[in-house]
């Protein structure tokens, strides 16, 4: 089994961070170039060691290593394991995650009224509340939001939105966490 260290970019550096708690032993040395997918060390959890590979989309040169001097360093979730200097590395072609957002830009947006976990259908295997291309009217159920273990029905409508609109994109994946104001639906007015 392998684990992937999540990449957190800050200015010209990129921190590869632990995806859980465990005892960390690095395999890389300062100055080495690390690319996404490459093994950077191992994390021991309850006596089992698992390989940790670099996540993200960019390569860089190692400038700092957690626990470089002592093996099996206890680390928390989110701790920076290896820090890369991006200026010294090689940029890897990154597929822009913003592509979908840009394509639907400029239209109407329906946003989340509160934070919570997003459910686009009433239950597993049930049809979705909203589908792309569908024309919805005020009062139409858009999703369920799970807030503090209780479910709340979110209905279409609100200031600046027309009585009826056509759904051009659903911006949130099932089971994802949303914050107030996060775009749930991209819409266009219907004549």
């Amino acid at each position: 089994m392998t684990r992937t260290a999540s990449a957190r970019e800050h200015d010209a550096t990129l921190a590869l961070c632990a995806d859980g708690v465990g005892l960390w032993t690095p395999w890389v040395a300062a100055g080495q170039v690390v690319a996404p997918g490459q093994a950077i060390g191992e994390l021991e959890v309850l006596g089992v060691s698992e390989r940790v590979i670099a996540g993200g989309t960019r390569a860089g040169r190692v400038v700092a290593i957690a626990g470089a001097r002592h093996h099996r360093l206890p680390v928390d979730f989110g701790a920076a394991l290896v820090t890369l200097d991006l200026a010294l590395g090689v940029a890897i072609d990154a597929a822009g995650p913003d592509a979908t957002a840009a394509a639907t830009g400029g239209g109407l947006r329906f946003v989340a009224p509160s934070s919570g976990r997003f459910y686009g259908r009433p239950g597993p295997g049930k049809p979705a509340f909203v589908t792309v291309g569908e024309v919805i009217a005020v009062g139409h159920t858009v999703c369920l939001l799970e807030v503090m273990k209780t479910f709340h029905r979110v209905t279409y409508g609100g200031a600046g939105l027309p009585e009826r609109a056509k759904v051009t994109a659903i911006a949130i994946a099932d089971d994802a966490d949303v914050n107030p104001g996060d775009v749930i639906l991209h819409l266009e007015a219907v004549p």
Partner: protein
Amino acid sequence: MSPPLFHRILIANRGEVAVRIARACDALGITPVFAVSEADRDAPYTRDREVVVLGPARAAQSYLDVRRVVQAAVQARCSALHPGWGFLSENPLLATLCAQHGVTFIGPPPHAMALMGGKSPAKRAMRDAGLAVIPGSDGPLASAAAARACADAVGYPVLLKAESGGGGRGMRIARAPGEVEAAFTDAQGEARGAFGDERVFLERLIEGGRHVEIQVFADRYGAAIHVGERDCTVQRNHQKLIEESPSPVLPDDVRARTLATAVAATKAIGYVGAGTIEMLLESGLEGRPVLRFMEMNTRLQVEHSVSEQRSGLDLVILQIKTAAGHPLPLTQADVPLDGHVIECRINAEDPDAGFRPAPGRITDWRLPDLQGGAIRVDTHVAPGYVVPPHYDSLLCKVIAKGADRAEAIARMLQALGELTCVGVPTTVSAHQRILASAAFREHRYDTRTIPGLS
């Protein structure tokens, strides 16, 4: 000589109970280590405390991940782990994994947890120990026809319940013979989907009734005590709002007999630590009211503070000492149960909007006057605290003690009037309406109706 206590304890929980456990650790000179999710790492209650970040906000990858929790205990050099309530507190796998990795689980042994975790085995064990149970099938039902035969025998209406159920799911009511087959099939289907276990059993449906539970405590050497009962009848959607002790409607002879039987049952199943035997008080339509066993919670409960205020015991300190191998330091005769205690759970919910949960930032927070010790407030909240949307909505518990019920109510109302919370709505106003209602004062309510609100 008593065995030495632990030096460091991992608190595998959050919020109010985490603070409660830390208080007991502080009193015993033990260093508590808070296992937290990313959402709680900067919460005021973890300030100046040792912390291990388990994972992201989502509980499945933090507070509910058994491996992360045990690894956190190991690498934080904790020799014991307190699971609190909710989350993994009744998970036998956590207790087992702790044992494998040399961490003492502060709770009952895995076999007692597993026994009480299965609905039918728990019921059978408690019936054998002498507690009254709700009439029904002897274990899971093999078929709809078996369900029908059993329902005819116990009498309608009946409730079909998932063997591995919880939270009100996998339950169906049948009020007449013609409804049993559909109820059986539906309960089975829901149970399969929700719990991965389609086994269903049947009980006579007791409508209304009052929720009365017994706090028990046992050590490793066969000694056990009770710390009185708690009446938790004031509920909304199976969530307790108010708990009190003693129960204002329980006849003295029924109380004495049931408390003694509960202690015997605790010993009979080899229980260790704090536990709660939840019972249903069937109203005395056909004569004497009777307490029937519902389930046993193998952990500390939110409302343990009610029993603490009546007895003067510190149940969390007792839990820790028991886990370290200390014998119970007292016998039943040494457990005083005096006065009347009421607890209100204050949640971040809007009672005027259907009790909608309301996460957000608390800008001002002031506790009521403690009235010379008659009021206790348990909380993790401080000004500036952000109530995260990921977990339950408990803000604090206010516990009031009086010489009798009327005095406890009066003190509680004064305290609730003084509690200040700005930034999120709270359930304080609902509690004030309940406590002031004639229905509450005259005991005219059951688990289906909220006095003063329904």
